[in-house]
Protein backbone atom coordinates (compact mmCIF):
# COMPACT_ATOMS: atom_id res chain seq x y z
CA UNK A 1 0.00 0.00 0.00
CA UNK A 2 1.49 3.32 -0.97
CA UNK A 3 -0.95 5.67 0.73
CA UNK A 4 0.27 8.01 3.47
CA UNK A 5 -1.19 7.12 6.81
CA UNK A 6 -0.81 7.52 10.56
CA UNK A 7 -1.28 5.01 13.36
CA UNK A 8 -2.75 6.63 16.42
CA UNK A 9 -3.69 5.10 19.76
CA UNK A 10 -7.15 6.38 20.76
CA UNK A 11 -7.61 4.84 24.18
CA UNK A 12 -6.60 1.84 26.28
CA UNK A 13 -7.92 -0.67 23.76
CA UNK A 14 -8.23 1.07 20.39
CA UNK A 15 -5.99 2.19 17.56
CA UNK A 16 -6.95 4.36 14.59
CA UNK A 17 -5.25 3.89 11.25
CA UNK A 18 -6.01 6.99 9.21
CA UNK A 19 -5.08 7.52 5.57
CA UNK A 20 -4.30 10.97 4.29
CA UNK A 21 -6.40 10.83 1.16
CA UNK A 22 -9.65 11.91 -0.46
CA UNK A 23 -12.66 9.62 -0.51
CA UNK A 24 -12.24 7.09 -3.30
CA UNK A 25 -12.98 3.46 -4.12
CA UNK A 26 -9.34 2.39 -4.29
CA UNK A 27 -8.87 3.45 -0.73
CA UNK A 28 -12.12 1.74 0.34
CA UNK A 29 -10.92 -1.41 -1.38
CA UNK A 30 -7.65 -1.28 0.59
CA UNK A 31 -9.45 -0.55 3.85
CA UNK A 32 -11.87 -3.46 3.46
CA UNK A 33 -9.07 -5.82 2.43
CA UNK A 34 -7.06 -4.80 5.50
CA UNK A 35 -10.12 -5.03 7.75
CA UNK A 36 -10.85 -8.61 6.66
CA UNK A 37 -7.19 -9.55 6.95
CA UNK A 38 -6.93 -8.21 10.48
CA UNK A 39 -10.14 -9.98 11.51
CA UNK A 40 -8.85 -13.26 10.08
CA UNK A 41 -5.16 -13.16 11.00
CA UNK A 42 -5.47 -11.41 14.35
CA UNK A 43 -8.84 -12.65 15.58
CA UNK A 44 -7.32 -13.77 18.88
CA UNK A 45 -6.33 -10.15 19.64
CA UNK A 46 -8.98 -8.06 17.90
CA UNK A 47 -12.62 -7.59 18.84
CA UNK A 48 -14.01 -5.28 16.16
CA UNK A 49 -12.72 -3.31 13.17
CA UNK A 50 -14.76 -0.38 11.90
CA UNK A 51 -14.00 1.36 8.63
CA UNK A 52 -15.01 4.83 7.55
CA UNK A 53 -14.10 6.65 4.30
CA UNK A 54 -10.43 6.97 5.15
CA UNK A 55 -9.75 5.13 8.39
CA UNK A 56 -9.94 1.91 10.34
CA UNK A 57 -10.71 1.81 14.03
CA UNK A 58 -9.32 -1.36 15.61
CA UNK A 59 -10.71 -2.35 19.00
CA UNK A 60 -8.60 -4.92 20.82
CA UNK A 61 -9.84 -7.48 23.30
CA UNK A 62 -7.40 -6.34 25.98
CA UNK A 63 -5.56 -3.21 27.04
CA UNK A 64 -2.71 -2.41 24.67
CA UNK A 65 0.37 -2.74 26.87
CA UNK A 66 2.90 -2.11 24.19
CA UNK A 67 1.83 0.36 21.52
CA UNK A 68 5.06 -0.05 19.53
CA UNK A 69 4.50 -3.77 19.29
CA UNK A 70 0.88 -3.31 18.17
CA UNK A 71 1.95 -0.65 15.71
CA UNK A 72 4.71 -2.83 14.27
CA UNK A 73 2.15 -5.58 13.80
CA UNK A 74 -0.23 -3.24 11.99
CA UNK A 75 2.53 -1.86 9.77
CA UNK A 76 3.41 -5.40 8.71
CA UNK A 77 -0.22 -6.07 7.87
CA UNK A 78 -0.49 -2.82 5.91
CA UNK A 79 2.70 -3.30 3.89
CA UNK A 80 1.84 -6.92 3.29
CA UNK A 81 -1.59 -6.18 1.83
CA UNK A 82 -2.14 -6.81 -1.85
CA UNK A 83 -4.33 -4.91 -4.23
CA UNK A 84 -7.27 -7.19 -4.74
CA UNK A 85 -10.52 -5.88 -6.09
CA UNK A 86 -13.12 -6.93 -3.59
CA UNK A 87 -15.68 -4.37 -4.74
CA UNK A 88 -17.19 -6.36 -7.57
CA UNK A 89 -20.31 -7.65 -5.83
CA UNK A 90 -23.56 -7.79 -7.85
CA UNK A 91 -25.64 -4.62 -7.79
CA UNK A 92 -28.50 -4.70 -5.30
CA UNK A 93 -31.59 -2.87 -6.51
CA UNK A 94 -33.29 -0.67 -3.95
CA UNK A 95 -36.81 0.42 -4.94
CA UNK A 96 -37.53 4.08 -4.16
CA UNK A 97 -40.73 6.05 -4.54
CA UNK A 98 -39.85 9.65 -5.46
CA UNK A 99 -43.45 10.85 -4.96
CA UNK A 100 -43.85 14.28 -3.34
CA UNK A 101 -45.49 12.64 -0.31
CA UNK A 102 -42.15 10.95 0.43
CA UNK A 103 -39.66 13.26 -1.28
CA UNK A 104 -40.20 16.20 1.04
CA UNK A 105 -37.30 18.27 -0.31
CA UNK A 106 -37.62 17.54 -4.04
CA UNK A 107 -39.08 21.00 -4.76
CA UNK A 108 -36.41 22.75 -2.71
CA UNK A 109 -33.62 20.86 -4.47
CA UNK A 110 -35.24 21.46 -7.84
CA UNK A 111 -35.12 25.20 -7.19
CA UNK A 112 -31.64 25.32 -5.60
CA UNK A 113 -30.00 23.05 -8.17
CA UNK A 114 -31.90 24.38 -11.23
CA UNK A 115 -33.01 20.90 -12.20
CA UNK A 116 -36.52 19.60 -12.83
CA UNK A 117 -37.82 16.99 -10.39
CA UNK A 118 -37.62 14.42 -13.18
CA UNK A 119 -33.97 15.27 -13.78
CA UNK A 120 -33.23 14.86 -10.08
CA UNK A 121 -34.90 11.43 -10.09
CA UNK A 122 -33.06 10.44 -13.28
CA UNK A 123 -29.65 11.57 -12.00
CA UNK A 124 -30.22 9.90 -8.64
CA UNK A 125 -31.48 6.55 -9.94
CA UNK A 126 -29.05 6.11 -12.85
CA UNK A 127 -25.90 6.10 -10.77
CA UNK A 128 -24.42 2.98 -9.18
CA UNK A 129 -23.48 3.63 -5.56
CA UNK A 130 -20.95 2.02 -3.29
CA UNK A 131 -21.66 1.41 0.40
CA UNK A 132 -18.59 2.91 2.11
CA UNK A 133 -19.64 2.03 5.63
CA UNK A 134 -22.62 1.70 7.96
CA UNK A 135 -22.91 4.38 10.62
CA UNK A 136 -25.13 6.99 12.27
CA UNK A 137 -27.92 4.44 12.89
CA UNK A 138 -27.97 0.62 12.87
CA UNK A 139 -28.05 -0.31 9.17
CA UNK A 140 -27.66 3.25 7.76
CA UNK A 141 -25.45 3.09 4.62
CA UNK A 142 -23.13 5.94 3.67
CA UNK A 143 -23.19 5.84 -0.13
CA UNK A 144 -20.57 7.24 -2.47
CA UNK A 145 -21.11 7.91 -6.15
CA UNK A 146 -23.66 10.72 -6.10
CA UNK A 147 -23.81 12.73 -9.34
CA UNK A 148 -22.27 16.14 -8.71
CA UNK A 149 -25.39 17.86 -10.07
CA UNK A 150 -27.16 16.69 -6.89
CA UNK A 151 -24.67 17.88 -4.27
CA UNK A 152 -26.60 19.89 -1.66
CA UNK A 153 -25.82 20.84 1.92
CA UNK A 154 -27.81 19.50 4.87
CA UNK A 155 -30.73 21.35 6.44
CA UNK A 156 -29.58 24.01 8.89
CA UNK A 157 -32.19 22.74 11.38
CA UNK A 158 -32.51 18.94 11.52
CA UNK A 159 -36.05 17.50 11.39
CA UNK A 160 -37.32 15.86 14.54
CA UNK A 161 -38.50 12.70 12.84
CA UNK A 162 -37.56 11.20 9.50
CA UNK A 163 -39.36 7.95 8.66
CA UNK A 164 -37.44 4.73 8.14
CA UNK A 165 -36.70 4.14 4.44
CA UNK A 166 -36.31 7.83 3.61
CA UNK A 167 -33.62 8.52 1.02
CA UNK A 168 -31.60 11.66 1.60
CA UNK A 169 -28.78 13.81 0.29
CA UNK A 170 -26.09 15.51 2.39
CA UNK A 171 -23.22 17.25 0.61
CA UNK A 172 -21.60 14.67 -1.67
CA UNK A 173 -23.35 11.72 -0.09
CA UNK A 174 -26.66 9.99 -0.38
CA UNK A 175 -28.04 7.56 2.19
CA UNK A 176 -31.11 5.74 3.44
CA UNK A 177 -32.57 6.17 6.93
CA UNK A 178 -32.65 2.60 8.23
CA UNK A 179 -34.84 3.52 11.21
CA UNK A 180 -37.12 6.40 12.23
CA UNK A 181 -34.78 9.09 13.48
CA UNK A 182 -34.20 12.83 13.75
CA UNK A 183 -31.97 14.00 10.92
CA UNK A 184 -30.79 16.83 8.71
CA UNK A 185 -30.45 15.27 5.25
CA UNK A 186 -32.50 16.59 2.30
CA UNK A 187 -35.21 13.98 1.70
CA UNK A 188 -35.98 13.08 -1.93
CA UNK A 189 -37.87 9.77 -1.68
CA UNK A 190 -38.61 6.68 0.36
CA UNK A 191 -37.85 2.99 -0.02
CA UNK A 192 -40.33 0.37 1.20
CA UNK A 193 -37.60 -2.10 2.10
CA UNK A 194 -36.36 -2.58 5.62
CA UNK A 195 -32.59 -2.12 5.87
CA UNK A 196 -32.34 -3.14 9.50
CA UNK A 197 -34.32 -5.92 11.15
CA UNK A 198 -33.33 -6.91 14.66
CA UNK A 199 -35.71 -9.88 14.47
CA UNK A 200 -33.62 -11.52 11.77
CA UNK A 201 -30.54 -12.62 13.70
CA UNK A 202 -28.66 -14.05 10.71
CA UNK A 203 -29.17 -11.07 8.39
CA UNK A 204 -30.23 -8.14 10.51
CA UNK A 205 -28.39 -5.68 8.30
CA UNK A 206 -29.38 -5.67 4.61
CA UNK A 207 -26.28 -3.84 3.36
CA UNK A 208 -22.62 -3.93 4.26
CA UNK A 209 -19.51 -1.93 3.41
CA UNK A 210 -18.42 -2.70 -0.15
CA UNK A 211 -21.90 -3.48 -1.53
CA UNK A 212 -22.99 -1.88 -4.80
CA UNK A 213 -26.53 -0.57 -5.07
CA UNK A 214 -28.78 1.22 -7.51
CA UNK A 215 -32.09 2.95 -6.87
CA UNK A 216 -35.09 1.82 -8.88
CA UNK A 217 -37.91 4.37 -9.19
CA UNK A 218 -41.33 2.94 -8.30
CA UNK A 219 -44.85 4.36 -8.11
CA UNK A 220 -46.80 4.94 -4.95
CA UNK A 221 -48.90 1.81 -5.61
CA UNK A 222 -45.79 -0.31 -6.05
CA UNK A 223 -44.40 1.21 -2.86
CA UNK A 224 -47.46 0.10 -0.94
CA UNK A 225 -47.42 -3.35 -2.54
CA UNK A 226 -43.80 -4.00 -1.62
CA UNK A 227 -44.32 -2.61 1.84
CA UNK A 228 -47.22 -4.96 2.52
CA UNK A 229 -45.27 -7.94 1.13
CA UNK A 230 -42.38 -6.89 3.30
CA UNK A 231 -44.47 -6.86 6.39
CA UNK A 232 -45.92 -10.21 5.37
CA UNK A 233 -42.81 -12.23 4.64
CA UNK A 234 -39.96 -9.86 5.37
CA UNK A 235 -38.96 -9.44 1.72
Amino acid at each position, binding site marked *: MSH*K*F*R*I*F*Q*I*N*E*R*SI*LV*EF*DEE*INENLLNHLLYLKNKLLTDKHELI*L*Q*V*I*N*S*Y*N*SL*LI*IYKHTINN*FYEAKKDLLEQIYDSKIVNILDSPIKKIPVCYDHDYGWDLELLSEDLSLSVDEIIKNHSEAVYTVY*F*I*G*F*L*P*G*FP*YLGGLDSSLFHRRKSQPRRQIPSGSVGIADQQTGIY*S*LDSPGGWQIIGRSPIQL*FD*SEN*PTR*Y*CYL*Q*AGDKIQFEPITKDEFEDIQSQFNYNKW
Partner: protein
Amino acid sequence: MSINVKQTGLYATIQDEGRTEGMPQGIPISGAMDFNLYRFANHVLGNKENSACIEFYQQGLKLEFDSPTFICIAVLDGEILLNDEQIESNSIIKIKSGDQILIKQLIEGNWGYIAVKDGFQSGAFLGSQSFYKALTQHQLKKSDKIIYVSYEGVSGADCPILNLEYYKTSVLDVFKGPEFQKLSQTLQYQLNNAEFSLSTSQNRMAYEIQERLDNELEEITTGPVLPGTVQYTPEGKMIALMRDAQVTGGYPRILQFSEKAINLLSQKRAKSKFKFNLIEINLEKI
Protein backbone atom coordinates in the same frame (compact mmCIF):
# COMPACT_ATOMS: atom_id res chain seq x y z
CA MET B 1 -40.27 -15.52 38.94
CA SER B 2 -40.17 -11.84 38.15
CA ILE B 3 -40.15 -8.31 39.35
CA ASN B 4 -43.00 -6.05 38.46
CA VAL B 5 -42.23 -2.44 37.61
CA LYS B 6 -44.58 -0.30 39.74
CA GLN B 7 -43.04 3.07 38.87
CA THR B 8 -40.51 3.63 36.12
CA GLY B 9 -38.58 6.54 37.60
CA LEU B 10 -36.72 8.83 35.22
CA TYR B 11 -34.94 6.36 32.99
CA ALA B 12 -34.36 2.71 33.74
CA THR B 13 -32.97 0.02 31.44
CA ILE B 14 -31.40 -3.42 31.59
CA GLN B 15 -27.64 -3.19 31.09
CA ASP B 16 -24.68 -5.52 31.06
CA GLU B 17 -21.18 -5.06 29.65
CA GLY B 18 -22.54 -4.18 26.21
CA ARG B 19 -21.90 -5.56 22.73
CA THR B 20 -18.57 -6.85 21.48
CA GLU B 21 -19.77 -6.94 17.87
CA GLY B 22 -22.08 -4.95 15.61
CA MET B 23 -20.21 -1.64 15.28
CA PRO B 24 -19.56 -2.23 11.55
CA GLN B 25 -23.36 -2.50 11.19
CA GLY B 26 -23.84 0.80 13.02
CA ILE B 27 -24.77 -0.77 16.34
CA PRO B 28 -23.55 1.07 19.46
CA ILE B 29 -21.57 -0.74 22.16
CA SER B 30 -23.97 0.31 24.97
CA GLY B 31 -23.59 -1.28 28.42
CA ALA B 32 -23.57 0.17 31.94
CA MET B 33 -22.80 3.90 32.16
CA ASP B 34 -20.61 3.32 35.22
CA PHE B 35 -18.84 -0.02 34.79
CA ASN B 36 -17.16 0.28 38.16
CA LEU B 37 -20.45 0.47 40.08
CA TYR B 38 -22.19 -2.08 37.85
CA ARG B 39 -19.37 -4.58 38.44
CA PHE B 40 -19.43 -3.92 42.16
CA ALA B 41 -23.18 -4.73 42.32
CA ASN B 42 -22.59 -8.10 40.63
CA HIS B 43 -19.45 -8.80 42.63
CA VAL B 44 -21.33 -8.36 45.94
CA LEU B 45 -23.67 -11.19 44.96
CA GLY B 46 -20.95 -13.41 43.51
CA ASN B 47 -22.55 -13.08 40.05
CA LYS B 48 -20.75 -13.49 36.76
CA GLU B 49 -19.06 -10.23 35.71
CA ASN B 50 -21.45 -9.65 32.82
CA SER B 51 -24.75 -10.45 34.61
CA ALA B 52 -27.52 -8.10 33.58
CA CYS B 53 -28.55 -5.42 36.11
CA ILE B 54 -31.23 -2.77 36.15
CA GLU B 55 -29.65 0.64 35.65
CA PHE B 56 -31.64 3.64 36.87
CA TYR B 57 -31.27 7.41 36.73
CA GLN B 58 -31.50 9.43 39.97
CA GLN B 59 -34.95 8.70 41.37
CA GLY B 60 -38.43 7.23 41.39
CA LEU B 61 -37.96 3.59 40.37
CA LYS B 62 -40.26 1.22 42.28
CA LEU B 63 -40.14 -2.56 41.90
CA GLU B 64 -42.04 -5.46 43.44
CA PHE B 65 -40.46 -8.91 43.74
CA ASP B 66 -42.69 -12.03 43.51
CA SER B 67 -40.22 -14.53 44.90
CA PRO B 68 -37.25 -14.76 47.23
CA THR B 69 -33.73 -13.83 46.23
CA PHE B 70 -30.81 -11.61 47.22
CA ILE B 71 -30.16 -8.24 45.63
CA CYS B 72 -27.60 -5.46 45.84
CA ILE B 73 -28.41 -1.85 45.07
CA ALA B 74 -25.21 -0.03 44.21
CA VAL B 75 -25.23 3.78 44.37
CA LEU B 76 -22.77 6.49 45.39
CA ASP B 77 -25.20 7.72 48.02
CA GLY B 78 -28.96 7.51 48.11
CA GLU B 79 -32.24 7.00 49.97
CA ILE B 80 -33.61 3.56 49.24
CA LEU B 81 -36.67 2.00 50.85
CA LEU B 82 -37.58 -1.66 51.31
CA ASN B 83 -41.29 -1.82 52.16
CA ASP B 84 -41.15 1.84 53.30
CA GLU B 85 -38.14 1.37 55.56
CA GLN B 86 -34.79 2.84 54.71
CA ILE B 87 -32.14 0.26 53.88
CA GLU B 88 -28.43 0.27 53.25
CA SER B 89 -27.14 0.50 49.73
CA ASN B 90 -24.07 -1.39 48.47
CA SER B 91 -24.88 -4.38 50.66
CA ILE B 92 -26.57 -7.76 50.39
CA ILE B 93 -30.34 -7.49 50.84
CA LYS B 94 -32.55 -10.50 51.40
CA ILE B 95 -35.81 -10.33 49.46
CA LYS B 96 -39.07 -12.16 50.26
CA SER B 97 -42.09 -12.62 47.99
CA GLY B 98 -44.04 -9.38 47.76
CA ASP B 99 -41.20 -7.10 48.87
CA GLN B 100 -41.14 -3.64 47.32
CA ILE B 101 -38.06 -1.55 46.64
CA LEU B 102 -38.26 2.20 46.04
CA ILE B 103 -35.34 4.30 44.86
CA LYS B 104 -36.45 7.48 46.57
CA GLN B 105 -33.54 9.56 45.40
CA LEU B 106 -29.84 9.52 44.80
CA ILE B 107 -27.98 12.04 46.92
CA GLU B 108 -24.81 11.73 44.91
CA GLY B 109 -24.22 10.52 41.37
CA ASN B 110 -26.61 9.95 38.49
CA TRP B 111 -26.78 6.21 37.93
CA GLY B 112 -27.39 3.27 40.21
CA TYR B 113 -27.53 -0.50 39.66
CA ILE B 114 -29.83 -3.19 41.00
CA ALA B 115 -28.23 -6.61 40.75
CA VAL B 116 -30.14 -9.79 41.53
CA LYS B 117 -28.58 -13.15 42.40
CA ASP B 118 -27.55 -14.74 39.04
CA GLY B 119 -28.73 -11.75 37.00
CA PHE B 120 -31.95 -10.61 35.31
CA GLN B 121 -33.12 -12.46 32.24
CA SER B 122 -34.29 -10.60 29.16
CA GLY B 123 -33.97 -10.74 25.40
CA ALA B 124 -30.41 -10.44 24.07
CA PHE B 125 -29.17 -9.09 20.75
CA LEU B 126 -25.63 -9.93 19.58
CA GLY B 127 -24.83 -11.48 22.92
CA SER B 128 -25.87 -8.58 25.12
CA GLN B 129 -29.05 -7.77 27.03
CA SER B 130 -28.26 -4.03 27.06
CA PHE B 131 -31.32 -2.06 26.04
CA TYR B 132 -30.99 0.02 22.90
CA LYS B 133 -33.92 1.32 20.89
CA ALA B 134 -34.33 -0.64 17.61
CA LEU B 135 -32.57 -3.69 19.02
CA THR B 136 -34.45 -4.37 22.22
CA GLN B 137 -36.94 -2.58 24.37
CA HIS B 138 -36.09 1.12 24.80
CA GLN B 139 -36.58 1.50 28.57
CA LEU B 140 -38.54 -0.09 31.41
CA LYS B 141 -42.25 0.67 31.40
CA LYS B 142 -44.87 0.46 34.10
CA SER B 143 -46.13 -3.13 34.68
CA ASP B 144 -43.16 -4.67 32.85
CA LYS B 145 -42.10 -7.97 34.32
CA ILE B 146 -38.44 -8.89 34.40
CA ILE B 147 -37.56 -12.50 35.00
CA TYR B 148 -35.02 -13.81 37.50
CA VAL B 149 -34.41 -17.22 39.02
CA SER B 150 -35.60 -17.35 42.59
CA TYR B 151 -32.90 -18.11 45.13
CA GLU B 152 -33.42 -19.30 48.67
CA GLY B 153 -29.89 -20.26 49.66
CA VAL B 154 -27.61 -18.28 51.89
CA SER B 155 -26.02 -15.07 50.75
CA GLY B 156 -22.59 -16.62 50.81
CA ALA B 157 -19.59 -14.36 51.01
CA ASP B 158 -18.91 -11.32 53.15
CA CYS B 159 -19.99 -8.13 51.50
CA PRO B 160 -17.08 -6.15 50.02
CA ILE B 161 -16.97 -2.40 50.65
CA LEU B 162 -17.49 0.04 47.78
CA ASN B 163 -14.43 2.24 47.45
CA LEU B 164 -15.99 5.70 47.31
CA GLU B 165 -12.54 7.31 47.05
CA TYR B 166 -12.63 6.21 43.40
CA TYR B 167 -15.24 8.91 42.74
CA LYS B 168 -13.73 11.71 44.84
CA THR B 169 -11.94 13.58 42.11
CA SER B 170 -12.86 16.30 39.68
CA VAL B 171 -9.82 15.67 37.51
CA LEU B 172 -10.63 13.42 34.59
CA ASP B 173 -7.96 11.63 32.55
CA VAL B 174 -8.11 12.21 28.81
CA PHE B 175 -5.96 11.28 25.84
CA LYS B 176 -5.46 13.44 22.76
CA GLY B 177 -8.14 12.80 20.16
CA PRO B 178 -7.27 12.34 16.48
CA GLU B 179 -7.91 16.05 15.74
CA PHE B 180 -6.32 17.47 18.92
CA GLN B 181 -3.16 18.53 17.10
CA LYS B 182 -5.19 20.75 14.80
CA LEU B 183 -6.24 22.96 17.73
CA SER B 184 -4.29 26.17 18.33
CA GLN B 185 -1.76 26.30 21.17
CA THR B 186 -4.15 28.57 23.05
CA LEU B 187 -7.03 26.10 22.83
CA GLN B 188 -4.78 23.20 23.77
CA TYR B 189 -3.63 25.19 26.79
CA GLN B 190 -7.20 26.07 27.77
CA LEU B 191 -8.32 22.46 27.54
CA ASN B 192 -5.50 21.38 29.77
CA ASN B 193 -5.83 24.15 32.37
CA ALA B 194 -9.31 25.66 32.48
CA GLU B 195 -12.17 24.42 34.61
CA PHE B 196 -15.25 23.11 32.80
CA SER B 197 -18.74 22.13 33.88
CA LEU B 198 -21.47 19.84 32.67
CA SER B 199 -24.65 21.18 31.11
CA THR B 200 -28.09 19.79 31.96
CA SER B 201 -28.08 17.79 28.73
CA GLN B 202 -27.17 14.32 30.01
CA ASN B 203 -28.31 11.02 28.63
CA ARG B 204 -26.93 7.62 27.71
CA MET B 205 -25.79 8.90 24.30
CA ALA B 206 -23.91 12.02 25.35
CA TYR B 207 -23.14 14.62 28.04
CA GLU B 208 -22.69 18.21 26.92
CA ILE B 209 -20.11 20.54 28.39
CA GLN B 210 -21.42 23.96 29.37
CA GLU B 211 -18.52 26.20 28.37
CA ARG B 212 -17.83 26.97 24.74
CA LEU B 213 -14.47 27.50 23.10
CA ASP B 214 -14.28 29.40 19.82
CA ASN B 215 -14.00 26.74 17.17
CA GLU B 216 -11.36 27.13 14.48
CA LEU B 217 -11.71 23.62 13.05
CA GLU B 218 -13.72 22.49 10.08
CA GLU B 219 -15.90 19.40 10.19
CA ILE B 220 -14.02 16.21 9.37
CA THR B 221 -14.80 13.47 6.91
CA THR B 222 -17.14 11.20 8.86
CA GLY B 223 -14.97 8.97 11.02
CA PRO B 224 -15.31 6.38 13.81
CA VAL B 225 -16.11 7.49 17.37
CA LEU B 226 -16.26 5.63 20.69
CA PRO B 227 -17.82 6.06 24.11
CA GLY B 228 -15.64 8.72 25.75
CA THR B 229 -14.85 10.62 22.54
CA VAL B 230 -15.18 14.40 22.97
CA GLN B 231 -16.59 15.99 19.82
CA TYR B 232 -16.16 19.67 19.08
CA THR B 233 -19.07 21.23 17.17
CA PRO B 234 -18.89 24.23 14.79
CA GLU B 235 -20.55 26.35 17.51
CA GLY B 236 -17.68 25.56 19.87
CA LYS B 237 -19.68 23.14 21.99
CA MET B 238 -17.95 20.07 23.41
CA ILE B 239 -19.95 16.84 23.52
CA ALA B 240 -18.70 13.84 25.47
CA LEU B 241 -20.10 10.71 23.85
CA MET B 242 -21.31 8.11 26.32
CA ARG B 243 -22.14 4.38 26.14
CA ASP B 244 -24.96 4.57 23.56
CA ALA B 245 -22.85 6.74 21.23
CA GLN B 246 -23.29 6.36 17.49
CA VAL B 247 -20.40 4.55 15.84
CA THR B 248 -19.37 7.36 13.46
CA GLY B 249 -19.43 11.15 13.57
CA GLY B 250 -18.45 14.19 11.51
CA TYR B 251 -17.26 16.57 14.24
CA PRO B 252 -13.57 16.83 15.14
CA ARG B 253 -12.61 14.39 17.91
CA ILE B 254 -10.46 16.50 20.17
CA LEU B 255 -10.18 14.37 23.31
CA GLN B 256 -10.83 10.82 24.46
CA PHE B 257 -11.74 10.01 28.07
CA SER B 258 -9.99 7.05 29.68
CA GLU B 259 -12.17 4.06 30.64
CA LYS B 260 -12.10 5.12 34.28
CA ALA B 261 -12.90 8.74 33.41
CA ILE B 262 -16.06 7.64 31.54
CA ASN B 263 -17.29 6.01 34.76
CA LEU B 264 -16.46 9.14 36.77
CA LEU B 265 -17.99 11.50 34.23
CA SER B 266 -21.20 9.45 34.03
CA GLN B 267 -21.79 10.07 37.74
CA LYS B 268 -21.13 13.83 37.61
CA ARG B 269 -24.30 15.85 37.81
CA ALA B 270 -25.33 18.84 35.72
CA LYS B 271 -23.27 21.91 36.70
CA SER B 272 -20.50 19.80 38.29
CA LYS B 273 -17.10 21.28 37.68
CA PHE B 274 -14.14 19.30 36.44
CA LYS B 275 -10.75 19.59 34.76
CA PHE B 276 -9.19 17.54 32.01
CA ASN B 277 -5.90 15.84 32.81
CA LEU B 278 -4.17 15.24 29.52
CA ILE B 279 -2.21 11.99 29.48
CA GLU B 280 0.12 10.84 26.74
CA ILE B 281 -1.00 7.47 25.47
CA ASN B 282 -0.73 7.94 21.77
CA LEU B 283 2.25 8.61 19.57
CA GLU B 284 1.64 9.39 15.99
CA LYS B 285 3.66 9.32 12.85
CA ILE B 286 2.75 10.25 9.35
